[in-house]
């Protein structure tokens, strides 16, 4: 494994009586895509602000390239904040050139690069229009460009897919892959688990400021792939049967097209035969479906488990 580009060791941050981040440690390696996940209020934004040196941790160390002052040259980093904001009375070109110049680019270079990126996002003919005349999706494109225009070594992308249609989401995935392949180290935060699953090399799941799941994406998925999601659509539920099965595995019930859908989350040790036998004997089954468990389910389970452990 290469030397870490970013190393975070035991950082803590509290606001008044609220612990926003608790004893958090992780490492991000050069050229990788690191996903910072978690429900709202989990501590992602506070962590990102500490990585950006906007706020300082109460304790712990943040080091870029082994430099423990917690700072990185702004010219070498890009940031797409969750709270989007640009200058609505300015053109995309002017706004992009301004933000790129703040990160050390020369005016002409910034202009050239901005035009190139705007063209790639099909905004070449709108580059001199006022930002407020652009659709929300197009404004998002401009915002995303502003974080990568200057070709930083390191970028933090908070919700990069927000506001994009599926076509543009695919475009963003492609671009992030390209940037990573060119050596850019990326920390991203997103709520679209299927997209994160396709992009990230490593993940960190936060809940109430604490890391509840951490590791390489392939390892996390491998561990979960031994698990199975079994869905059974039935006309009516036999509560007694389900009560008997609750010792075997977790399940959820939902209404689907006039039927009840029972979804069981199974692991290797679960006896599928015993479960199916119990269901077929006591309920009228219309449909059976199986799928392996993805990041979305892993995320929900990990957060639920953590909440139960701290009695929230």
């Amino acid at each position, binding site marked *: 494994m290469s030397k870490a580009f970013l190393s975070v060791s035991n950082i803590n941050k509290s606001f008044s009586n609220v612990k926003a981040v608790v004893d958090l440690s992780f490492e991000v390696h050069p050229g990788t895509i690191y996903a910072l996940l978690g429900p709202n209020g989990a501590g992602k934004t506070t962590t990102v*602000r500490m990585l*950006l040196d*906007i*706020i300082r941790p109460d304790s712990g160390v943040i080091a870029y390239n082994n430099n423990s002052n917690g700072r990185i040259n*702004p010219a070498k*980093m890009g*940031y797409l*904040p969750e*709270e*989007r*904001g*640009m*200058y*609505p*009375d*300015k053109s995309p070109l002017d706004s992009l050139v*301004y*933000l790129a*110049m*703040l*990160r*050390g680019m*020369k*005016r002409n270079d910034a202009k050239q690069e901005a035009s190139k990126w705007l063209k790639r996002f099909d905004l070449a003919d709108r580059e001199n229009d006022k930002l407020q005349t652009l659709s929300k999706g197009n404004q998002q494109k401009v915002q995303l460009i*502003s974080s990568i225009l200057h070709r930083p070594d390191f970028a933090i992308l908070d919700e990069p897919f927000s506001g994009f249609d599926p076509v543009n989401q695919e475009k963003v995935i492609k671009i992030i892959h390209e940037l990573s392949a060119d050596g850019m180290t990326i920390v991203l935060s997103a709520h679209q688990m299927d997209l994160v699953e396709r992009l990230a090399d490593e993940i960190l799941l936060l809940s109430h400021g604490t890391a509840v799941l951490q590791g390489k994406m392939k390892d996390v998925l491998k561990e979960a792939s031994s698990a199975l999601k079994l869905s059974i659509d039935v006309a009516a539920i036999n509560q007694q049967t389900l009560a008997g099965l609750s010792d075997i595995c977790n399940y959820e019930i939902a209404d689907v097209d006039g039927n009840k859908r029972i979804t069981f989350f199974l692991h290797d040790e679960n006896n599928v035969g015993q479960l199916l036998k119990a269901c077929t004997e006591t309920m009228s089954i219309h449909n059976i479906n199986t799928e392996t468990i993805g990041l979305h389910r892993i995320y929900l389970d990990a957060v639920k488990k953590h909440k139960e452990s701290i009695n929230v």
Partner: protein
Amino acid sequence: MSSPLLTVARWEFFRYFKWKGEIFTLLLILVLSGLSFSGKELISKFSSAKSIEIAVIDDLGVTLPELDSSRFIWTRANQTDRPALMQRLGDQDIGGILSIKDSTNSSMTVFEKESWQGELQPILNQLLLDKRLDSAEISHADFYQLNKPAALEIQIHQQGNLPSSKSEKLFVMIVLGLMLLGVFMSFSYIFISVTSEKQMRVTEQVISAISPQTWIDGKLLGLTAMSLKSIITTAITAVLGIIVFAKLTNAPSYFEGFEGSIITFGLIGAFALAGLLFWNCFLVAIAAMVEDPNTSTKTPIMLLPVLAVSVAFFAISEPNNIVVQILSFLPITSMGVMPVRMVMGTVDMWQIIASLLLLIIAVVWTRKFASKIFRLSMLMYGKEPQWREVWKWIRQS
């Protein structure tokens, strides 16, 4: 490569500088300043273009003077002519019908109110007064000699403390007006710049690229330059307007007798610059605290600089008053008051330098605490900092 500081300053300056608007505003100032100083002469000039015929129905039989034959033409008439005269008045063929009843009473019927009617009043007064003097057999020369007002010439004993001329007063009024314009423009630029960035959530993106200190310094530089630009262009255009209109209308020269040295101009410029920087630091700090400009209780505090400069207008009547002297040293008022004392009162150079130094020290100190407030307030969303918190930050800065 330009530094981030200059990049921010340039951005802030050109956010508000629009060529079209600028040219339109300057043209407007040119015309309005010219009109406000030479409007009277301009109106007279146009209304004097034609002679006005006045029909006089004179029961007293006064001798009509030929004071300005090109201005008024007297036409003798009788009471029986009145209906025909009224017809001519309705057609605006004559300016008015003047009825002189006795030496104290006269009336005039006109089509509508116009400026020449004011010019007729003193002529008529003189006419009727002379008639009364004749009736009373009083010599005109004796009467005017008796009514001559007593002359009182004031001579100042203190050296150098010469009475202020009208042109000096006018100059000071213009300087204070321009300073007011400067702080008012600063208020509007800074308020919009800072609160809109906070509301548009640009803050995090900028702060991740540059330090809050660079950001606030760039803002101060760019927006102060914008305010100074407003002051300078307005001053040049307004003075130009006054001079051009005065030439066109033969109005008196308002700046005649004013002797301003380069040093005086330079020092006034230094006070204007330092004062603007001082108040702009204050304004940036307050604006950063505002969460919602529509509901914030902190917005009215931003008008404080306007009041502080307005105080200087009271110094014009008594520039050497002890209170005025004290105000000329206080950084919150010295920007306006010291220039008034410099032009209209007596002030030693050491006092001017000391006052300017105090103002510069205040700028340095205000910038320091403004930076602290700005840095902490700009990332505070959803609530405004309490004054208690702000005071704590100031003490920490």
